[in-house]
């Protein structure tokens, strides 16, 4: 097994370098930037990813990230996350600091929220940073659509055409007047998804898998005084998809139509030594399956957080949030208003150059449950010179997630007596940054262990009715290694990135103890090289390896899904037509080796495919 992975990685590397020598290479659009996420995280361990002008889904945009696996029910189909070997509902998704998972299922469909509406995304592994949202057992995904304050008006339009009937059109505009700033974004994408694949020795074409996605976003901000700002973010997205049938039932015709309303109104007050942030939000998720089975959930949320510097070495964060949920569905019999509230406090100490520490405490309340989830993290600086910086981090944290609305209210079977899923996590990391004028490198290593209990599992009872119970105990041991290098050679900027994660996520209760959880690959690896020149050319090659996944808890080899290696190549050029006009043309070749692979068992995925992008920018 190990040798096989090594071979894949090696092959990937060789082909990367081979290509690097032949072509001028690339860069996509994921440089790492500094942060406005600090308001919603604590500690240091998060990665910020820029999504500028990306036409892809959030799933696609995050597919290169370490420690994340997406279980996808086909191409641009339902995509649920497994962060560090945990279940889909154990990742917290925060939007403007508000929990944004669909409350019925307790998870996000990452194929449905387009990156076009986001500026950046940050990932924070583990439970430590999630002061604001519940559910961060595996980690937190923070979505930032903070308004960029444009100096002048800006208009951007992007159009993409691709294989299998793919067409994306998106327009963004940002403007300002006096104390007002605004931005409007619209997009529409359609994918016919009729890609060919081979099954049982025959060439067949995928049927009934088209996806239509469209939406609009309006953002406004008004500066009341020099230290006070009010903001509004309103978005509506629709995703109408045919549910991609499996290879064994290729003619099924099922449909899922999803509408999402997201509204957030914020008020920010800057104080001499601190700030106050408050947000009111409304989120509605409307899912209709086959035109007869409809579920609508409504979420009303409020968040208040204060951050302040008590002294040069001490800063504090205090706050609280309240979330109310209602829902209507054929399968929810009673009207209900579920309430989840919490208060939190965080203290950060920076007494010296070589040590800093953070203590977080979060007390949550729902029904009769009072989950208390503290965490503690610290950072030691081992070496800090002009060129080298070495530091160590470690963290211990408790996490939990609420039962979902389905778990509690589904009729028949819903169980109002469920306890939250709980976890305890330990992790340690080492970072080495090296920097000189034309070269920089960053090596990062993390090891972690998570003990998690009371996993909610649906099982049939005596009369065959499925009902959720607190059933499973899981122990996760993992390691993440990444190395990033960038440098200038031959007048070109090269950025090389490699990442590997090992995630052993084992069942520890009942039968099948010590077995790996289904759809949690033991090995994941990523390699990419971007090269860009001053005259606007850029290129990128990226290889992703996903290890074998079992589909059953008994880990039967025969029912497992094979590991796969995917390689994508991008080439593009930016042109300056005039001072105000920029153009960018790019081509993407995805799955270059035309590998036949499956993410979910028996669900076809496309072979080699192409995408052409045109971006027009005026400012």
């Amino acid at each position, binding site marked *: 097994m190990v040798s096989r992975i090594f071979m894949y990685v090696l092959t990937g590397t060789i082909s990367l370098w081979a290509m690097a020598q032949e072509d001028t290479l690339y860069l996509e659009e994921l440089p790492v930037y500094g942060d406005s996420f600090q308001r919603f995280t604590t500690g240091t361990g998060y990665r910020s990813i820029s999504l500028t002008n990306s036409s892809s889904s959030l799933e696609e945009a995050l597919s290169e990230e370490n420690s994340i696996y997406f279980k996808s029910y086909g191409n641009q189909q339902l995509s649920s996350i497994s962060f560090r070997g945990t279940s889909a509902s154990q990742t917290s998704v925060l939007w403007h600091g508000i929990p944004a998972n669909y409350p019925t299922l307790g998870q996000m469909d990452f194929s449905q929220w387009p990156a076009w509406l986001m500026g950046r995304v940050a990932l924070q592994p583990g439970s430590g940073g999630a002061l604001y949202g519940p559910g961060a057992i595996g980690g937190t995904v923070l979505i930032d659509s903070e308004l960029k304050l444009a100096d002048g008006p800006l208009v951007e339009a992007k159009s993409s055409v691709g294989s299998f009937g793919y067409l994306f059109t998106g327009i963004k505009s940002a403007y300002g007047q006096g104390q007002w700033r605004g931005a409007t974004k619209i997009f529409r994408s359609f994918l016919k998804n009729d890609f060919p694949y081979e099954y049982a020795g025959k060439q067949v074409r995928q049927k009934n898998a088209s996806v239509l996605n469209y939406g609009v976003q309006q953002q406004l901000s008004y500066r009341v005084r020099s230290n006070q700002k009010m903001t509004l973010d309103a978005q509506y997205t629709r995703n109408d998809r045919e549910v991609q049938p499996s290879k*064994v039932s290729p003619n099924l015709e099922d449909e899922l139509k999803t509408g999402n309303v997201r509204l957030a109104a914020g008020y920010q007050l800057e104080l001499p030594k601190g700030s106050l942030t408050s947000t009111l939000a409304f989120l509605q998720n409307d899912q209709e399956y086959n035109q007869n089975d409809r579920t609508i959930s409504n979420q009303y949320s409020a968040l208040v957080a204060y951050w302040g510097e008590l002294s040069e070495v001490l800063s504090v964060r205090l706050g609280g949030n309240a979330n109310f949920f209602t829902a209507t569905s054929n399968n929810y019999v009673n009207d209900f208003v579920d309430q989840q509230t919490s208060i939190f406090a965080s203290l950060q100490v920076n007494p010296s150059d070589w040590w800093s520490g953070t203590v977080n405490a979060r007390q949550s309340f729902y029904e009769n449950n009072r989950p208390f989830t503290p965490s503690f993290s610290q950072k030691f600086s081992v070496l800090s010179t002009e060129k080298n910086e070495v530091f160590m981090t470690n963290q211990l944290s408790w996490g939990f997630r609420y039962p979902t609305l389905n778990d509690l209210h589904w009729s028949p079977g819903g169980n109002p007596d469920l306890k939250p899923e709980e976890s305890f996590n330990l992790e340690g990391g080492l970072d080495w940054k090296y920097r000189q004028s034309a070269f920089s490198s960053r090596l990062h290593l993390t090891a972690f262990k998570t003990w998690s209990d009371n996993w909610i599992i649906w099982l049939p009872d005596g009369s*065959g009715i499925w009902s959720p119970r607190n059933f499973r105990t899981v122990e996760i041991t993992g390691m993440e290694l990444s190395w990033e290098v960038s440098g200038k050679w031959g007048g070109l900027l090269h950025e090389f990135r490699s990442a590997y994660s090992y995630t052993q996520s084992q069942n520890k209760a009942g039968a099948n103890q010590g077995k790996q959880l289904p759809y949690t690959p033991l090995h994941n690896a990523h390699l990419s090289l971007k090269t860009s020149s001053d005259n606007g050319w850029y290129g990128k090659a990226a290889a992703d390896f996903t290890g074998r996944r079992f589909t059953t808890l008994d880990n039967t080899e025969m029912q497992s899904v094979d590991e796969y290696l995917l390689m994508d190549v991008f080439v593009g050029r930016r042109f300056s037509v005039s001072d105000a006009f920029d153009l960018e043309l790019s081509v993407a070749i995805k799955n270059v080796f035309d590998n036949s692979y499956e993410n979910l068992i028996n669900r076809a995925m496309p072979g080699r495919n192409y995408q052409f992008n045109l971006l027009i920018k005026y400012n």
Partner: protein
Amino acid sequence: MKNYLKCLLLMLPFILASCEEDTEPQQVGQFDAGIFVSNEGNYGEGDGSLSFISSAGVVSNNLFSAVNGKALGDVVQSLHVGAGQLFAVVNNSNKIEAMTLDSLKSTYTITDVSLPRYMVSHDGVGFVSEWVSFSDPGRVTLFDLETGAIDKSITTDFGAEGLIISEGKLFVSNNFTTTVSVIDLASEEVVASIQVGNSPAGMVLDADGDVWVVCSGGYDANYAPLNDGKLVELNPASFEVKTETDLNANLSGKIAVAPSGRTIYYLMGNKVYSLSTDAPEGGQVWVDEASAVSFYGLGVDQSGNVYTADAKGFAENGEVFVYSPAGAFQTKYNVGRGPNGFAFN
């Protein structure tokens, strides 16, 4: 060919693993005396499969894909043996796979069926029940066993489910209703509809040729179980209800009968219940299997041994438990994912 070899190769570790009790390797092609198990798989994943337990107690799993180089389908609902063939009724793939009994090579596939459920055969004709949809009445489709050519469909009522033939009549339980439809095999028309109880499902014949139907029980407007499950005995000639045994619970729609035709078995959770056809009385626990999650399939072989299938919540592969006619645990077997029923050859 390549795929066939690849599948055999993939099979190898499993064949080896399943032969722990018996070092002799199982040879594909010997299915003369034994039990086929339908494993419905996890809904939507298309991993339904076929297992075989030989008379020597050797299990072979994933037989259909090993022989035919493709998956059996999504939600393998039931199996039927007839006219030297094995039929797999695959619900969510909307098809019936016919295989030769000696090699399990696919002979034909019927795809013009809609949510097919169960099958019986008679005089070279196959009868398959179909739900059709959740908003259309169900039906029974007749086809030629040899060629798979569809002859005609006869509409019964919503959720056409269980099938059994007695006295020249085909009895069809309509699972989304409270009725059993009766089709005259000569005229091929529905001649009666019998009121039985909520959610009629599996049916068996007793020693006198009476039809016994299990009614799983209904739900109220709030989806709370009505606990009105029952066993109903029908006179196959007059279509009258002879006896009704209230079970005061909702239960599985699976039912089986001992070779004597005088004992009926049914399932609730991880318990098997027995009922005497001569003096029917509910609530008689026959086996209480603490190590099972929930029984999902039931069958009785020619010797009267009782087979139950535990789908174990579909998160892992299932198990088959075997009990002697006296109810003593004999052995258990690891089979595929979501085992739901048996066909005895």
